[in-house]
């Protein structure tokens, strides 16, 4: 736990938002401050604030320029005091099954070559990670998980690949993600999951909350086919 509390940096974003920055790293302690600020600002009900968007190390605070302005909102945010990196609230833990290999892992061999590991070692490293949901971003339900073990961290591909289907289990640097809709991506696809991070027809289409944890588990091709056939959400 980080005891040295640093006043967050607040920067204007155009005329209808500001960014509250707690650092520049993907780090659980920094992220805990982001979440603390997210709930504190939400609870404070600052007049004119329209939207809060947490990310790895910053919180975006949107406001309506017809109702308030940068000076007023930033003063109200500062008045809430430094954000304590309090004891991590125990987010829910989700088991996310993954089927590796068997034609579902287009980049597994390449990741093995680039990391100097066997495919099996890459899979085991991926399974051993303790993943934290840092933020949603890019596209609906894209949950950015941090916690990929060092030995399989690779920079993203130089050019994105088009039309990656939903359910692709991908890694890039310290980040992991399971796709929810067809999108281009430069990340490495090492498996496929029937787990749905986005459930468009349900009352809560985003079952996982930022701050929740994810453990990947291994599933066989047969179990994968069965789960997909049953329209699995798990």
């Amino acid at each position: 736990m980080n005891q040295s509390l640093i006043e967050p940096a607040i920067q204007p974003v155009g005329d209808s938002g500001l960014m509250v920055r707690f650092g520049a790293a993907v780090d659980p302690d920094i992220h805990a401050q982001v979440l603390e600020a997210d709930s504190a600002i939400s609870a404070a009900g600052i007049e004119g604030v329209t939207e809060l968007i947490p990310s790895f190390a910053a919180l975006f605070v949107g406001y309506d320029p017809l109702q308030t302005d940068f000076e007023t909102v930033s003063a109200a945010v500062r008045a809430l005091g430094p954000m304590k990196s309090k004891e991590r609230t125990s987010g829910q833990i989700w088991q996310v099954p993954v089927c590796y290999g068997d034609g579902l892992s287009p980049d597994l061999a390449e990741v093995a070559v680039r990391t100097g590991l066997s495919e099996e070692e890459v899979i085991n490293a991926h399974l051993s990670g303790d993943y934290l949901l840092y933020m949603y971003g890019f596209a609906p339900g894209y949950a950015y998980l941090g916690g990929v073990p060092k030995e399989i961290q690779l920079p993203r591909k130089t050019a994105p690949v088009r039309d990656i289907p939903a359910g692709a289990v991908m890694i890039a640097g310290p980040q992991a993600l399971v796709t929810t809709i067809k999108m281009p991506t430069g990340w490495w696809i090492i498996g496929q999951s029937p787990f749905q991070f986005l459930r468009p027809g349900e009352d809560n289409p985003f079952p996982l909350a930022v701050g929740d944890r994810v453990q990947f588990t291994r599933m066989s091709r047969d179990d994968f086919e069965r789960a997909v056939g049953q329209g699995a959400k798990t």
Partner: protein
Amino acid sequence: MSAKFTVSFAGPLVSVQDYGRPGSMRFGVPRSGPMDRTSFAVLRRALEQNEGFAAIEVSIGGMVLKCTEGNVTAGFVGGNFSVSLDGQPQSPWSVFTIRAGSTLTIRPGLEGSWGYLGFCGKINSSEWLGSQATHLASGLCGHPLAAGATIEVSEAKVEAGFTCSLPIPDFARFSGNVRIVPGPQDDCFAPETLGALVSEPYEVTQDYDRMGMRLKGPSLPIAEELSMPSEALVRGAVQVPGHGDPIVLLADHQTTGGYPKISTVITADQDQLTQARARDKVRLASATPAEAVKLARAQHAKVTTYLESIAELRGSFEDRLRRSNLISGVVGDEF
């Protein structure tokens, strides 16, 4: 009573849009909604529709529809398109009644990239997270409208009294001048790069859709590599990827990104910018957040005044003359 339409032709990116789904960016969902929210608001007022109002956003490609059933009062607002009903030219911004068998033709006119076709009634279309706004990239709430599609308007009403021709206000036209608030990552760029951004004109490229608009002009090399993890992106953000061309993010923008944002287009100029066309020149100028807030409020006041004038512009010239006479009392019964 409902009215039905068949789409005979639709340009690319023609879609149903409403107010959008604000507040969902924390789940990776952009707000979507109209590219030009000002024109959309004028149309809603002209048709006296409530906040849930949805309309068809017509791109520069235009659109042709045939009314196959029912009668309904409709309006078109935005840009400066050429609009005709059964071959009869209408004013570019106008309200008219479409009857079964009629064909409405919307063609790109002299200026503008987006226009809004709405009805006195409710367009039946997919809904997600409380909004009918089509999110083209995800396909989670419908798809672009293409030839052969049918559009059903339920609770369709004929409101002959809403008929009008509206003047195109200056605030709804692309002006060629767009103001930006520097940052939040302007410190990733050399001072001369920041200078070039506001001193040289940029050109709007063909690389322009509902997600963003790529500009071409002096290249914006990143002086200091960014060691910042991904963070929230907002509409209007001017993001600079490795190619060095600024991209202005718009209605369907991705919600987070890791490229540096050199500046953000001010709220008051976001809508008029969307009406630019490829090869148009844009001059950027800096504003402080406080100045931009003032400009947003001034713009809002101008739009409000315009919205309030719509009622006065309804009806034929004779109708308007009669109304003004009744109010001023100059012309009495003896005339």
